[in-house]
């Protein structure tokens, strides 16, 4: 029989096997999840929870699908957080400092408390990427924030009301579209296809008998 631990889901005590993640512990306790459950693999940010271990001063945040239960863990879910998402036309904006000032001026009210970084479920240096955004250093902001799952825990802890994940999203799109070097080989290939360069070649394949295609496939040259 597996060892059990006590977890307190929204304050109510449940006894669950110690090997479970917080998410599976909730299900074990009988919750049929609708909110607060998405990919179950740590990519979607749906399942952020805040917890405290009894007697511990510190408040922790994590993804419920990625974190094991502990004895005397008090858990509250944070399936939604009202992040501020400003709308913009990606074709019209420019990758300059002003754009952050226009869309997310509150980032300049950052008090440097670093609560965002401490709370990040992905262990990102959140305050640092906000600093990059303030300075219009979008490439650095994009790189530093790249593993963000947009769970919103950082924003829930921010005294300045910053929506960090949305700031980072804007920085990444600006970098990806306007600042990353252009891929010439890609543009050339798209042009060739538009000109119908490969049409006959592919149709030629499509019209071959299966046996011939098998022959071609099994003997095709493979790049090292």
């Amino acid at each position, binding site marked *: 029989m597996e060892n059990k631990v006590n977890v307190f889901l929204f304050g109510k005590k449940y006894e669950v096997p110690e*090997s*479970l*993640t917080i998410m*599976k512990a909730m*299900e*074990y306790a009988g919750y*049929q*999840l*609708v*909110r607060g*459950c*998405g*990919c*179950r*693999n*740590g*990519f*979607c940010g*749906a399942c952020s929870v805040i917890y405290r271990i009894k007697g511990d001063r510190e408040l922790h945040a994590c993804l419920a699908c*990625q*974190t*094991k239960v502990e004895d005397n863990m008090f858990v509250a879910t944070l399936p939604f957080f009202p992040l501020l*998402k400003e*709308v*913009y*036309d*990606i074709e019209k904006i420019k990758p300059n400092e002003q754009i952050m000032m226009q869309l997310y001026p509150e980032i300049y009210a950052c008090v440097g408390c670093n609560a965002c970084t401490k709370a990040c479920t992905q*262990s990102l240096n959140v305050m640092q990427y906000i600093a990059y955004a303030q300075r219009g250093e979008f490439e650095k902001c994009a790189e530093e924030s*790249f*593993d963000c799952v947009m769970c919103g825990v950082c924003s829930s802890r921010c005294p300045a009301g910053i929506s960090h994940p949305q700031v980072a*999203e804007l920085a*990444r*799109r600006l*970098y*990806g*579209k306007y600042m*990353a*070097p252009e*891929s*010439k*080989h*890609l*543009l050339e*290939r*798209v042009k060739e*296809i538009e000109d119908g360069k*490969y049409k006959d*070649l*592919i*149709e030629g*394949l*499509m019209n071959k008998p*299966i046996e011939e*295609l*098998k022959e071609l*496939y*099994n003997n*095709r*040259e493979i*790049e090292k």
Partner: protein
Amino acid sequence: MYKYTEEQLVSMKKVEATRESRLNNLFGRMSAEEKQQVLKENHPDYIESAYENLKVGPNKGGKVLHELADLLQGKSRVLDMDIDLSKPDYDVDVLVIGGGGAGSSAAIEADNKGAKVMMVTKLRLGDANTMMAEGGIQAADKPNDSPAIHYLDAFGGGHFAAKHELLYKLVNDAPDAIKWLNELGVMFDKDADGTMVTTHGGGTSRKRMHACKDYSGAEIMRTLRDEVFNRGIPVVDFTSAIELIKDTEGKVAGAVLMNMETKDIYVAKAKTVIIATGGAGRLHYQGFPTSNHYGATADGLVLGYRAGAKLLYADTLQYHPTGVAEPTQIFGALVTEKVRSLGAQLVNKNGEAFVYSLETRDVTASSIIRECNKRDNGIKTTDGEGVWLDTPMIEMIGGEGTIEKRIPAMLRMFGKYGIDIRKEPILVYPTLHYQNGGLDISADGMSTTVPNLFVAGEAVGGIHGRNRLMGNSLLDIIVFGRNAGKSAGEKCKSVELKDLTLNHVKEFKKELDDAGINPTKLSPQLLPNYTKQQNI
């Protein structure tokens, strides 16, 4: 923190001992005959007892897995409801069902056509398998490559069963899909001169796997989601489609929707409908764990089938070779193929390589199953068995720092359990990953049997044949999502709807009655139920 068993530790030592020699002596590729044999003898698709023949519907007589048959021939949720179709709650040109990469691409392109678009998704926008696709997206955009070579790779990899017109579209529109994403701001891995960093995937003959570190799908999905929001396209979230609506002429004309939390029912009238509901991993076919997101329950297949849409290759599933076998907390989660692209080998309990690392997924998965079952060379794990994936080889080949730079999500996922994949190999076993089959469409994205019903993404059958190559799924959701959005956005301009009806649901029920089937299981399933269970 994960604690290895004694047996696992002993075996791990053997893996370390053989690492150097394995690095210099790559395991050879299989011949066509050897591949056929390992598939026949080991692949779950070949287990006859897992299947049954459908008794009603457009694919009557065709075989599908029991779990899917139960849903396709299940009990409609609307039969006992009193629904007034004459007063729709929503009235739109294009209704997109599903909030993943295909649905979002479709919504954006339909919006470009000037159509009034609405998305409905049972969880949040972006809660989808797209979000979890780690490895990359294929496109033949390098000078030594061409769409024709891509075509041959995919056609052969799918066992020569793909629908020609669909595969043509997939490979020919691939470079433009990358360009489109790039222009939306997706951050692809590039060299300083802008050359895309591309690698091999299982079954590719050219390095055409584009990636955004190992968050490829997440980066694409969050960008598309941001774009949908920027455009102000209405997204009705936490709301599922539970049945399609038709008009009296038999054209699809909307859907009955249900709020997942309050269970309130709404009627959405639409000139065209796009099913982009994704896959079925959460049905846990044949008891397999899955790498899929929480909502992957084949809903679109059920909705379409009851409305008369034909299925193609619904009997074939993809079991990704490398799901997590240990630690148990993340059992079944995906270990991206990119780990093998970067040089990690599959190794048995004796420290021996047993398969070339980048065979197609079905062949690799079958080889792992054979190693564990027939050859008894697996390593015992909490939930069953597994083999080693020798991740430290990656940095021997690519240099120190490669893992952190190229597969940070993997480093993090195992790091949380105290496993440093730079230093230790990891334990893997096949996991239910992808629905190869789905609803049958023509090149314009429309169902071959139901007018004005479009389908995109994993819910489509036939693009990949009977097995899909890595990186062709992220590609297909973009290519066919955009395609469906454009087609539906055009088509809706000439559609005139007659009175709405759910008669097709009643007729389907009668067919079930006539076949002596009295279903108790409600379908579509919408979500799995893991409460008080074995916690799969």
